[in-house]
């Protein structure tokens, strides 16, 4: 657990959802809600000025929606990680948001523990959030057949394990190599796929036919 709390920005057009999330997250000593935004434009503004570590972003918001806001937030220098918050599991917007670089998604109906854990997981960025649900979501779209970057067999293997939600340490154990080696492979995969993080790497890797889910 880091010494300084994780700074969270909550963006949702429903005040009662914002206040609920704030209560839940603020109750954790290691999390701190630093701001609330009522729409996408405000979320981008506050992300710039407050420099949060994680933005909990409602996908469907009036005006600038969560998808567009995610894109804009991720273009900021040293951007925060974006956790997409959604009412419905099978929302095409969620996958779009993950494709443009959101680090994970969370259902609004999830319990408090799950919400807290999701924010922590995304903040740390060491493993995938809800690999199962992510897999179902990604599978709902057809994959492209062309334009796959050339990964080495080892890199593909690593990406496959990342897609299963494994941390670097777990992958190292599974492949009987050092954690450093795994880290190098993951970094190489992210670079080749031009992915921001593990989530985006899995989404893009699946779409390019590099990972089977």
């Amino acid at each position, binding site marked *: 657990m880091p010494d300084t709390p994780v700074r969270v920005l909550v963006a949702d057009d429903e005040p*009662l959802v914002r206040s*609920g*999330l704030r*209560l*839940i997250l603020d*109750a954790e000593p290691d999390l701190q809600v630093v701001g609330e935004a009522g729409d996408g434009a405000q979320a981008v503004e506050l992300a710039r000025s407050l420099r949060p570590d994680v933005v909990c972003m409602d996908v469907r918001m*009036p*005006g600038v929606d969560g998808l567009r806001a995610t894109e804009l937030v991720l273009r900021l220098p040293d951007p925060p990680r974006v956790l997409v918050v959604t*009412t419905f599991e099978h929302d095409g917007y969620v996958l779009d948001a993950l494709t443009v670089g959101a680090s994970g998604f969370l259902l609004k109906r999830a319990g408090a523990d799950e919400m807290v854990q999701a924010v922590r997981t995304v903040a740390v960025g060491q493993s995938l959030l809800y690999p199962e649900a992510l897999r179902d979501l990604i599978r709902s779209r057809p994959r492209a057949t062309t334009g796959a970057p050339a990964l080495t067999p080892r890199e593909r293997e690593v990406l496959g394990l990342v897609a299963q939600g494994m941390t670097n340490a777990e992958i190292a154990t599974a492949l009987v190599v050092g954690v450093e080696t795994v880290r190098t492979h993951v970094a190489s995969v992210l670079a080749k796929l031009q992915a921001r993080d593990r989530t985006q790497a899995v989404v893009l890797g699946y779409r390019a036919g590099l990972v089977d889910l």
Partner: protein
Amino acid sequence: MQATKRYLMRYLARRFAWHMLGAAIGLALVLLVYSLLNISAGMVPSWALAVATFAAAIGLGLVPGARELEVTAARALLDVDDELVVPADPRPAHRIRTAVWVAGHLASGLLVAAGLFAGIPMAVLIGVEALAGESLRSGDSFYTGLPLPDGPVSLALRLIACAAFALLALVATWPLGAAASALAGRVLGPTPHDRMETALARARREAEHTRLARELHDGIGHALTVVSVQAAAGRRVVAANPEAAAEALAAIEDTARSALTELDQLLAVLRDDADDEAPVALAPALGDVVSAHRRAGLDLAARIDLPEGLPALLGRTVQRIVTEALTNAHRHGAPGPVGLTVGHDDDGVRIEVVNPVRAGSRPGRRPSGGRGLSGIRERVALFGGTAEAGRDGDSWILRATLPCAPLRTAERTGDRVHGATDRATDRTTNRKDPDA
């Protein structure tokens, strides 16, 4: 074999019954027409009798109830599987088709009856004369008047012709019945117009399902989301921060209660739709919305003029738009008087909300960005309407138009329209009343 034979007998019996029904009515009609013509015009040529009878048959087909009788007869006696319709409100096309069908039924029945009861005896008679080689007569007149055959070949041909004719008359009910059965669906079934109306009705139903799904998603889905998030929050902090937990409980209570009200209204709409009569109680509902906002401190002047016969979902959409617009005015507007106008003309329902905006607030920022306007736009778009909002000096103006089929005129709906306006005015004048 036995079963097939029994089936065939029943089949023919039903076809025969159908023809006899036509023959009985046809014969009655012929006799009626014959006697009427005889009384009024003396002896008439047989073609005139035929024409007059045909006209009478057409007239009979136009009598209310003829369609029902023919449809029942066709289903029961012709085994018609096609869809047959008895329109509650028959159009000319239905009447004409019914009349043609009745005339055809009577003609077909008379033909079969004539073959059986006149044709066959005549054929037998001719055959017997030919075999006997002697013309049969009663008193001075011949029965047939045909010359006798003058040789064996002629005799054989005559006998074969008689047998063939008798056989044809005997079985005529079969092909004629089959033809009637095949044609019933086309004549007594739905007209192209009916089919189009059915398709349109289905499309309307589907559009309403979409709207209802949206209502559910927006209203109940949203409320349940808020409830689950607030409940999670309340449970989380109940020990450390009981006040916050109590607030969460209050929010849950409010949200659940208003969601139940919404569900109530939605179900009322569904029930109304099931009745297909949709006298949605929009005026009182809007009155409630208006008074709720006044209670919450909005200085609201309302002019509400509603048409009657507003489809339930449209009425509900009007209510939601007004609610959203007033909520927006409340949340984002500056203090000051807010004007609500709901009116209607030939094109549909018009809604206008005017509220003051804070000096210096950037035009087009907050108020337009609220959930309100995009929600309103989507709602209105479902009905093919338009919504626009913008700043005009110190005012923010929202206008929405919801087209609907030509509404009944105000004369017929006077009570209701004035009732709604009066009600709104009452509330306006009672504004200082602490309860209003």
